[in-house]
């Protein structure tokens, strides 16, 4: 599966706020530290540099 497909699947999980693929870098945005631990533990993207950023939950304002 391509990384976008995997990330789209990951996005459906609770605590995951978003993601970005830019070149060989993947950024995963998460709601809290707990979700950050979960995202950091992923070994799905071995060819990529993975960064996890705690942004909180995005809500329509």
């Amino acid at each position, binding site marked *: 599966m391509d990384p976008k497909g995997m990330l789209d699947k990951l996005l459906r999980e609770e605590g995951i706020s978003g993601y970005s693929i830019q070149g060989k870098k993947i950024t995963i945005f998460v709601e809290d530290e707990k979700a950050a631990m979960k995202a950091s533990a992923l070994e799905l993207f071995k060819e990529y540099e993975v960064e996890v950023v705690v942004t909180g939950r995005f*809500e329509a304002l």
Partner: protein
Amino acid sequence: MSFDRRARFKDLAGGISIGSEEITAGTLTGKFIDMKDGSEVMVSNYHVFWGKPGETKIVQPGPYDGGRVPEDVVGILKRVIELDRHKELPWWKKILCIFFGWLLEEWCYPEMLPNHLDAAVATFNPTDTSRTLLKGVYLDDGTRLEIQETHPGDGINGKKVWKSGRTTGITKGTVVNDKATVKVWYGTEWKKFEDVVIVEGEARGGDSGSPVFLSTNEEPSGSDKLCGILFAGSAKYWVHCKYKYLEEDLKVKWAT
């Protein structure tokens, strides 16, 4: 007395309270030109101008800030970008699916288009004809800044931006990601957006619709460029749609 963005304005411009008769309150992005007919129109998020095109009234200030029908009506919802749209099937595929849809169920299911934009356009025809729609955006001291240029919103990682919103006024931020896919909670359901911009900066409920500008100086100035429309956020971040999609999908241009 300090400048009150939630008040009723005679001269409307970006950064003040507005909303459809069906919601609480959001922010007016500003004055735009409808590329379909050349008319002067108002733009904000669809969830701020929520309703039925051709029917729903837009009030300034928004209902939560005291805007009422009919005295505060400033326009009618004209056009929206529906979320979770599906790509239309080509005619030949439609015919095949009419006859063989039961067999080709998955193949016949139309592909979902990505959401890029939470935006809508409304006419400007106020009940009180002395009210006007002006170019530009209000600053925190109540002066109005006219901004001439726009920016598509791409390639701005690490850049400084600012927004003008009904709740938190002018706030500045830094772009942390200019090509993100996010999910946003709309009170009853999640919506997924692609190719949006995440900014480390302050925004709160009621700031939706805020115009976002790419900074050229430390303070807001006329040489800044409109680069997006804010629609979501968390405690320390906001998310905005790129300006280019206002032109490409909603078919409106920033009035200069």
